[in-house]
């Protein structure tokens, strides 16, 4: 680092742009999480299903999402689908790629959560006159979310960090996109990347802290 002098003043001038980029990153992370959770519930059910097709589909999704790099998944939703004539916007492609990844990981987390709930509870609920979907929705699901809440917030942090992959599919409005744009314009790589790292760190902290707050509010006995 001896042959580099830091220029912090112009770098700090770009902070407002970077912060609005951070908002876009956070937005993608939250949306991908919401979509991911919805799909993951179905995938988790599919993994336990006796229906061959449902089981096969869910297993295929989970295997692909968990055992290939996230970069590959994002790149494929953009350029891979593009080669079949399906053109997604950079933002949508990134969101879809991360949601796909989230769903795969969360499905396995949820499956573990479901297993931890004694089957006798469902039977008790059914014997009280609840239908099977009712028992699942009112008895099993709330308990499952309590069990998997911390692994979920982990995935949320992971989703935020994965948004940095958007730059490979031409996204220039998220935090990494804005940073890379500033970088190639001015070549002040270290200042901008250091600022971006700090912002990512703070966002990740924000997510962990607010999820703890949520947990405390939601899951008190």
């Amino acid at each position: 680092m001896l042959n580099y002098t830091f220029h912090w003043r112009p770098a700090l001038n770009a902070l407002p742009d970077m912060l609005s980029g951070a908002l876009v990153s956070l937005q993608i992370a939250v949306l991908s999480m919401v979509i991911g959770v919805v799909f993951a519930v179905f995938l988790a059910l599919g993994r336990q299903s006796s229906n061959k097709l449902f089981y096969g589909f869910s297993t295929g999704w989970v295997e692909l999402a968990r055992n290939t790099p996230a970069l590959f998944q994002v790149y494929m939703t953009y350029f891979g689908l593009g080669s079949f004539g399906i053109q997604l916007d950079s933002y949508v492609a990134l969101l879809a790629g991360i949601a796909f990844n989230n769903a795969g990981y969360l499905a396995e987390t949820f499956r573990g959560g479901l297993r931890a709930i004694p089957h006798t509870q469902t039977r008790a609920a059914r014997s009280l006159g609840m239908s099977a979907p009712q028992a699942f929705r009112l008895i099993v699901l709330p308990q499952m979310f309590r069990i998997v809440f911390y692994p979920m917030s982990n995935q949320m942090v992971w989703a935020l960090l994965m948004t940095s992959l958007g730059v490979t599919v031409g996204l220039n409005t998220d935090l990494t996109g804005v940073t890379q744009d500033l970088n190639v314009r001015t070549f002040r790589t270290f200042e901008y990347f250091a600022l971006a790292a700090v912002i990512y760190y703070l966002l990740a902290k924000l997510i962990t802290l607010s999820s703890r707050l949520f947990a405390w509010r939601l899951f008190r006995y």
Partner: protein
Amino acid sequence: MKLRTVAATLLLGMIAAMPAKADKLDDIIASGVLRCAVTLDFPPMGSRNEKNEPIGFDVDTCHDLAKALGVKAEIVETPFPDRIPALVSDRADVGVASTSDTLERAKTVGFSIPYFAFKMVVLTRDDTGIDSYESLKGKKTGSTAGTFEAIALEKDVKAWGGGSFRPYQTQADVFLALSQGQIDATVVTNTVAHSVAKSGKYKGFVVKGDAPYVTDYVSLIGLRQEQGLLNYLNLFVNQQVRTGRYKELFEKWVGGEAPDLTVKGVYY
């Protein structure tokens, strides 16, 4: 005894206080290797042949420079956005990678006098109906992040108010996006445009008119404070033109009239 101790201390102090004299130019000559950062997805400046060996105008220029220095050339493949980090983190000694000499960048990195000059043209597919730079208005465009043409195009797209601009990390991704229809047109250097349109690798690529930008002069780059090296690079570029080697290389890789590297009416 005491005097000798004092003398020894003084001597040691003088050696320690002596500044390290060897600069980058000395280091290159001493190490026997010149490491050039070259972008290899930018034909005909830099690309790979069938045997996966680096070839192109920039690669030959690096070899010429190494020959002049009496050392071996080593090509370090560097995507456009990573040219400066490669220099600063000491993975390369000089950048021979068609780097546009903007004032903004000159705050960070040292430029030689221009060793090449580009004109920009519009590259599109034959089914988009785009026939000039003006007809890009409101269209989906894109280019390689951080390049001269990307910065100019993004500025114009913003001024037009319609359409979109997408920066991609490599030139190859830009062509992929153009061939798939994620974007409808890009602005690229004339050399690249003609070489990719001619190659037939992507169906329907056509060059449609010039982009009205000022000439894009590109320089060799080194660390800003390495004046010794930068002086050498300046003389090297001058000699390349003077000896006719510049024309020869241009004929070999591009063909036609080699662009004038001087700006009329002003000293460099």
